[in-house]
């Protein structure tokens, strides 16, 4: 368990999955936010992950994962005829983002599984480290 790098790697995974969970929460919370223009509609956000390789003396030291950017979905918003809505435009339409709840929930499940995996890696690494500290004590 040299120099705690494993914690950095698993920690970066936890952080990245956390961003993903945040975007899912944001997408689900805003799935019925209405707007009076198609441009002003909430756009679903998705994180893009990237592996960052580290190297010391030509030896690879592990690749952490980082969120490279958070992209916005390019899907056109849905329009709904709702003249009574105070946000309706001149023709009586309001616009809602095209967010698939099923898609978001599967993304959430996938993110939480990966999150747990990384936590488990850290837990195991910690246990092994503690055992190593006790080396030679019987």
């Amino acid at each position, binding site marked *: *368990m*040299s120099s705690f*790098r*494993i914690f950095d*790697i*698993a920690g*970066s*995974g936890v952080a*990245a*999955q956390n961003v*993903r969970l945040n975007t899912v929460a944001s997408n689900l919370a805003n799935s019925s936010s209405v707007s009076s223009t198609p441009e002003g509609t909430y756009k679903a956000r998705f994180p*893009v*992950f*990237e*592996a960052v390789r580290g190297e010391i*003396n030509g*030896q*690879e030291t*592990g*690749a*952490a*994962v980082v969120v490279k950017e958070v992209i916005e979905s390019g899907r056109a918003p849905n329009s709904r005829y709702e003249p009574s809505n105070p946000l309706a435009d001149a023709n009586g339409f309001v616009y809602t983002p095209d967010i698939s709840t099923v898609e978001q929930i599967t993304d959430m499940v*996938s*993110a939480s*599984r*990966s999150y747990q*995996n*990384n936590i*488990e*890696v850290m837990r*195991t*690494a910690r*246990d*092994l480290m503690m*055992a*190593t500290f006790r*080396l*030679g004590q*019987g």
Partner: protein
Amino acid sequence: MLDLDKHFAVHAAALRLSAQRSEVIARNLANADTPNYKAADFDFRKALDNALGSGGLGMSDAGALRTTQRLHIGGASGSDPLSGIPLTTVNRIPLAPALDGNTVDVSLEQAEFAKNSIRYQASLNFLNSQMRGLMTAITGQ
């Protein structure tokens, strides 16, 4: 005389390599959702052979410093298992690559991680009992 380096060589090197391997697998798991990431691993046996020098299990003196004068300081016989071990990682051959080019098989990595942890524990146990044996010899009890 008992050479401590030799005495601990195999398990010390195995312990270090297990730690490095757990890092490689942690890396794979952290990047389980990264597009185009290729799962990596290394050949444990080859790496261990490498770490212990050409003699396989560290019993050869091929890599030792030679002393030609009485005042020369001889190196530890065999190669030092704790020196930098060059690790060549290879990409795993995926059974079912994902559409985004990622080749991490999470359940496989989990299994490998668990296996590797047990090996680490085993090396620790061996080292511990070796040390206990030495302590018994030293204290004579």
